C-alpha cells in the first residue's frame, strides 16, 4: 500500500498536474493572465493530430482486428455512463432529469486534453500500451452524446405528451465534424496511409509535452472560472462531478482487464480506456448537447465537467490508474 502511495505522489508531481494546478491557482487569485483562444485551439489541434499520427503509425504495423473488443467496450461504456447519471443524479431531489442526462452525456464523452495527458504519463512510468488505444476516443464520445440526446428527448416527449422524433444521424455527423474528432481521425488516416515519420520525429513528437503543459494551464484557468457557473446550480452536480470520473474509470478498467484476459490487450491499454471513460468532454460535447437538449441548463453540465470533472480526471484518475497498473506489473 505504501508503494502505491509513493507512486501516486510521484504522479502528482508530474509536469502535467503541476501546470494544471498552477492554472487553477492563478485564475483563483484573479490574475489577468489570458491565453488567446486561437492558441488554445491550435494546441488542442496539434496534440490530437499527434496522438492520431501515433495511433495511425501503430495501426499500420499491427493487426487491425485487435481493436474490435476495446472499441466495443468503449461504445458500451459511453452508453452506460448516460444511464448511470439518469438513474442516480436524475433521481435526486431538485434535479431536472434533462440536466442529469446532459451531464451524463458530457461525462460519457471524451476530453482530448485528458487523453493527451495520460499518454506521456504512461510513457514516463514505462507502462506499455497499444498506441492505437487513442483511436478509441470517438467510439466512446459519439455513443455517449447520441444516447444523452435520445434519452432526454424520450423523457421530455413522454412528459409533455408531444412525441418528437430524434434524428440520430445529424448528431453523429456533428460529432465527427467537430474539431477534436476531425484532428484525431485525420492524424490516424495520415499515419496509416502516408509515411509521416520525418515530421513526426522532428516536429510533432518533440513539441508534444511542451504544448501539453501550456494546455494544462489553460484547462486549470478555465476550471477556476467555471466554478462560478457551478455555484449557481445544485450542489449535487459538484458531488456527481467528483465521484463520476473515478467510478467510470473503474468500470472501464475492469472491462479492459477482462479484454486483457481474453485477447492479451495490454494493462496500459486498459489504463487508457479507463482514463478516456473518466474524462468528460470540454470542446466538442457542450455545443452538441446545447443544441440537442436545449432545455437542459448549460451552467450545470459545463460547470460540472470543466470545473470539477476534468481536474479530477487529470489529477486523480490518471495517477490512480497508472499507479494500479504499475502495481499489477509488479513494480
Amino acid at each position, binding site marked *: 500500500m505504501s508503494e502505491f502511495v509513493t507512486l501516486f505522489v510521484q504522479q502528482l508531481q508530474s509536469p502535467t498536474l503541476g501546470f494544471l494546478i498552477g492554472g487553477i491557482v492563478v485564475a483563483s487569485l484573479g490574475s489577468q493572465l489570458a*491565453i*488567446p483562444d486561437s492558441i488554445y485551439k491550435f494546441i488542442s489541434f496539434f496534440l490530437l493530430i499527434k496522438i492520431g499520427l501515433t495511433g495511425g503509425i501503430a495501426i499500420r504495423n499491427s493487426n487491425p482486428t485487435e481493436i474490435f473488443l476495446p472499441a466495443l467496450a468503449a461504445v458500451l461504456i459511453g452508453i452506460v455512463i448516460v444511464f448511470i447519471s439518469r438513474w442516480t443524479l436524475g433521481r435526486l431531489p431538485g434535479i431536472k432529469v434533462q440536466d442529469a442526462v446532459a451531464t451524463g452525456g458530457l461525462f460519457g464523452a471524451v476530453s482530448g486534453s485528458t487523453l493527451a495527458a495520460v499518454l506521456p504519463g504512461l510513457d514516463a512510468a514505462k507502462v506499455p500500451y497499444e498506441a492505437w488505444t487513442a483511436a478509441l476516443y470517438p467510439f466512446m464520445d459519439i455513443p455517449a452524446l447520441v444516447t444523452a440526446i435520445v434519452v432526454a428527448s424520450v423523457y421530455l416527449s413522454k412528459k409533455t405528451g408531444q412525441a418528437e422524433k430524434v434524428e440520430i444521424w445529424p448528431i453523429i455527423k456533428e460529432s465527427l465534424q467537430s474539431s477534436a474528432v476531425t484532428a484525431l481521425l485525420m492524424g490516424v488516416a495520415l499515419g496509416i496511409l502516408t509515411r509521416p515519420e520525418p515530421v513526426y520525429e522532428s516536429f510533432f513528437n518533440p513539441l508534444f509535452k511542451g504544448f501539453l503543459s501550456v494546455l494544462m494551464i489553460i484547462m486549470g*484557468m*478555465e476550471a477556476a472560472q467555471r466554478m462560478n*457557473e457551478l455555484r449557481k446550480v445544485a450542489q449535487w452536480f459538484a458531488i456527481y462531478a467528483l465521484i463520476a470520473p473515478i467510478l467510470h474509470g473503474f468500470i472501464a478498467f475492469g472491462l479492459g482487464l477482462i479484454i486483457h484476459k481474453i485477447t492479451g490487450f495490454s494493462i496500459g491499454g486498459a489504463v487508457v480506456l479507463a482514463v478516456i471513460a473518466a474524462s468528460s468532454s470540454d*470542446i466538442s460535447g*457542450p455545443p452538441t448537447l446545447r443544441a440537442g437538449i*436545449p432545455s437542459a441548463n448549460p451552467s450545470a453540465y459545463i460547470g460540472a465537467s470543466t470545473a470539477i470533472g476534468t481536474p479530477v480526471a487529470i489529477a486523480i484518475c490518471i495517477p490512480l490508474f497508472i499507479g494500479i497498473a504499475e502495481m499489477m506489473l509488479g513494480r
Partner: protein
Amino acid sequence: MSQQVWKLVIVAEEILSKKLTKLIKEAGATGYTVNAAGGEGSRNVRSTGEPSVSHTLSNVKIEVLTGTRELADKITREIEAKYYADYSIITYIYPVEALRDHKF
C-alpha cells in the same frame, strides 16, 4: 439620397448563430452583420469567450436591416417561437436611415 429602414438587433448564444442567419435569409432579408458580443443578462454573465474552452457560453450580436417593419416583425416572431423558451436571446428594433437606398 437616404431611405428610412428598420434595424433589427438580435443578441443570442453563439451556437445559434448559423441557425439564426439561415432563418433571417429565408425570411427574405437581403443581408445581415454578425459581431462577437459579451455582457450580462437575466440568465447569466455571458463571456466573450477568452480563454474559453468551449464556445457554448459565448454570444453574438446579429444586425439585420429590413426595408419594411413587417419583415422585421416576421423574423422576430419566428425567433420567438423557436428559441425564446430555451436560449439566452434578446431582440430589439429601431428605425435608421440607410445611405444606399436601393439595397433594401
